[in-house]
């Protein structure tokens, strides 16, 4: 008997806890997003009505579902937040600084209360925050009444159209429904209202009024989906009551999926990729003993399977992607709290929040990124007084950005603070016996020292940045995910940490090369060019082998020598050009065997780990092939001579 027993309410609703946490997370994400915008409207005479409506509804829903799962602290807290929002919405109070602070405190506490339940910990007390919320409601009520909700101004060139959509089961099947029609209309203009109407024949249709500057041709393109258009009668804009703002809502067609299930799916796809590679090898073996026509047809089937597999893989990866903006917004609140506690003034800017990243990577990178942000605020940025004394703007700037480049995602955390004092770092490292160097450190060496376990530049009791992880953990977490961290810092100008991560783990495009009969996989995203070179074209300059390349010279790394293999050199060889313009190097290999999708597996055994090797993969013949770590190779090449 696996049916839950509705007589036992506690147990009955426990089965929804995972859904509950997931939905709470979604609401908290959108609440934080709304609060970031709302902060600009503190003390403003008009507050965006849609924003307030959305916040109100999120708190309302959190209250409802928290009550269902018996989490009464969250239910009560959400209730008080909702009540304050209702007052703001109805205009009985104006959003004050203390009101906003109370909202932020309430939201953080709400998150803590929910997380406490999730981790089976006792719930924090909500009394103080509830009192604050009640105080701001009562306090500011007497100050002044807020003006009517803001309505956005009309575009002079826009025309109003009345659009009618008649839903049918067939259209719904094709994904054309009231939600999709509405969002399409919102893309081309401003939606004034949406309401159902009864047709003469007794059927149901939806009437939308939009204001758009789009031409007739654009509207006509909608007609295939059963939409009809006519210029809207010049009616006065309906009041808010009949035309509620039309926020983006989660349509009933969205499902939530446990990340574990997606991991399982990814694992199966990885197995499929290996099987297909095996199939391809076997096809090659068959070529001689199979009639050409049959072989070609087998080959075509194999190729189309390869394409389908790639589509499948990309679809699954898309499902796993979330926007990194969620993390940025979370950080904004951490920064706010820290700034308030330390008396610093900090402006947070972010860009590229819409960049998508694998959910798994987000979860693993959350703490390390948070550590860098805390560091930037507590160590990097100066106090307002210090900044002014240096002629800087009193507000420190923390900018968070994300972008994709090829198969990588690049996250930057930059501050315009005091920069890292190299001499201080060096002195400390020497004092702790972590370094014997005395020369000036470059950024890479500096980062290496900062990331050495046991090193910490914590000067005073900066408790913020001491939480949980240190720089060594940040570096380790990044590298475990196949990523890389780098640093750029200048005294008095600021510090930028750059983290590069693969868009997704597990599967990558690679070139398979051979050196001395041994095969290696080279991540294709890093290879700029492949050259065929005659041995006679190489020259030796200061113990470095070089070849002419695009009017300049390219230093070569001989893989055979690097891995200390006994190498017989042939006449010709291939060079893979890796790295950026100025510091490009050439990787010399004997042959290029082909291009493959590889399943990346980390080498976890420390005895088998080796510099220059990023992991291992398996090709069709079930033999293990090592994956080269190009960045490490390049670094080694510049520090030692090959």
């Amino acid at each position: 008997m696996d049916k839950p027993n509705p007589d036992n309410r506690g147990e009955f609703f426990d089965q929804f806890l995972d859904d509950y946490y997931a939905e709470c997370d979604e609401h908290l994400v959108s609440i934080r997003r709304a609060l970031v915008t709302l902060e600009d409207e503190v003390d403003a005479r008009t507050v965006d009505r849609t924003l307030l409506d959305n916040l109100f509804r999120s708190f309302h829903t959190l209250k409802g579902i928290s009550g269902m799962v018996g989490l009464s602290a969250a239910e009560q807290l959400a209730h008080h937040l909702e009540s304050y929002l209702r007052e703001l919405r109805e205009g009985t109070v104006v959003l004050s600084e203390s009101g906003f602070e109370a909202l932020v405190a309430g939201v953080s506490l709400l998150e803590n209360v929910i997380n406490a339940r999730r981790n089976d910990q006792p719930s924090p007390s909500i009394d103080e925050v509830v009192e604050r919320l009640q105080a701001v409601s009562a306090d500011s009520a007497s100050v002044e009444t807020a003006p009517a909700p803001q309505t956005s101004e009309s575009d002079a060139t826009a025309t109003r159209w009345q659009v009618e959509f008649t839903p049918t089961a067939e259209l719904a099947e094709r994904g054309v429904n009231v939600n999709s029609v509405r969002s399409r209309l919102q893309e081309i203009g401003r939606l004034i209202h949406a309401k159902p109407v009864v047709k003469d024949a007794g059927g149901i249709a939806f009437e939308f009024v939009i204001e758009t500057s789009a031409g007739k041709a654009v509207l006509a393109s909608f007609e295939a989906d059963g939409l009809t258009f006519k210029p809207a009668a010049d009616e006065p804009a309906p009041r808010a009551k009949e035309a509620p703002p039309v926020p983006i809502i989660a349509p009933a067609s969205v499902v939530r999926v446990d990340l574990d299930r997606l991991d399982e799916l990814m694992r199966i796809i990885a197995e499929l990729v290996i099987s297909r590679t095996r199939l391809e090898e076997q096809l090659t073996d068959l070529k001689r003993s199979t009639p050409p026509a049959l072989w070609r047809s087998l080959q075509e089937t194999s190729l189309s399977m390869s394409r389908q597999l790639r589509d499948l893989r990309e679809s699954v990866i898309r499902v796993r992607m979330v926007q990194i903006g969620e993390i940025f917004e979370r950080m904004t609140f951490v920064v706010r709290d820290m700034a308030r506690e330390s008396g610093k003034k900090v402006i947070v800017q972010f860009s590229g929040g819409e960049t998508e990243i694998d959910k798994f990577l987000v979860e693993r990178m959350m703490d390390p990124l948070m550590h860098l942000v805390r560091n930037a605020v507590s160590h990097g940025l100066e106090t307002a007084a210090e900044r002014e004394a240096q002629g800087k703007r009193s507000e420190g700037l923390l900018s968070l950005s994300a972008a994709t480049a090829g198969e990588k995602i690049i996250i930057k955390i930059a501050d315009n603070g005091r920069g890292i004092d190299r001499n201080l770092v060096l002195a400390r490292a020497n004092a702790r016996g972590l370094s014997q160097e005395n020369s000036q450190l470059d950024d890479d060496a500096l980062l290496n020292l900062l990331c050495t376990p046991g090193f910490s530049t914590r000067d005073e009791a900066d408790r913020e940045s001491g939480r949980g992880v240190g720089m060594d953990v940040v570096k380790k977490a990044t590298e475990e995910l196949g990523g890389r961290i780098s640093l750029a810092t200048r005294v008095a100008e600021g510090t930028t940490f750059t983290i590069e991560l693969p868009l997704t783990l597990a599967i990558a495009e690679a070139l398979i090369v051979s050196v001395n009969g041994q095969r290696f996989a080279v991540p294709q995203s890093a290879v700029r060019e492949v050259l065929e070179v005659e041995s006679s074209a190489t020259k030796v300059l200061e113990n470095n082998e070089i070849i002419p390349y695009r009017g300049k010279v390219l230093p070569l790394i001989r893989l055979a020598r690097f891995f200390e293999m006994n190498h017989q050199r042939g006449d010709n060889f291939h060079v893979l050009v890796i790295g950026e313009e100025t510091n490009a190097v050439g990787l010399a290999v004997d042959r290029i065997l082909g291009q493959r999708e590889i399943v990346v597996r980390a080498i976890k055994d420390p005895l088998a780990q080796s510099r220059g090797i990023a992991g291992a993969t398996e090709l069709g013949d079930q033999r293990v092939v090592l994956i080269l770590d190009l960045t490490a190779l390049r670094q080694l090449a510049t520090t030692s001579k090959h």
Partner: protein
Amino acid sequence: MSDDLKMNNILVVDDSPTMRRMVITSLGSLRRIKSSQAGSGLEAIERLAIEPVDLMVLDLNMPDMHGMEVIGFVRSHQAYRNIPIVVLTTKGEESSRSEALAAGANRYLTKPFDPRQLADVVGSLLQAS
């Protein structure tokens, strides 16, 4: 298929997917029930237009179109005016009970709800209609 073997389609309207699942699971003890879902008032009306609905479980505070407007629309529409409506809303606005019942809701329940009570109410309304 004879009338007494007919499957009753329950339309569950709530903007919270978790809440919709809770409602649908609560109704699992009833026989000959199937369900469909809508996340807003407008979506609810769309479901009505494209599939037969025997009863609605309706939240009030939703984006797009408030539950009260949905009741008003359904009750003024010849083809749908007899569909029983159970309002299921979060406690707090006591005035809404009388408003919802006056507008034509058959029953008014509050969240947190008792799954057994919800199933009983839905079951008896289906039997009566």
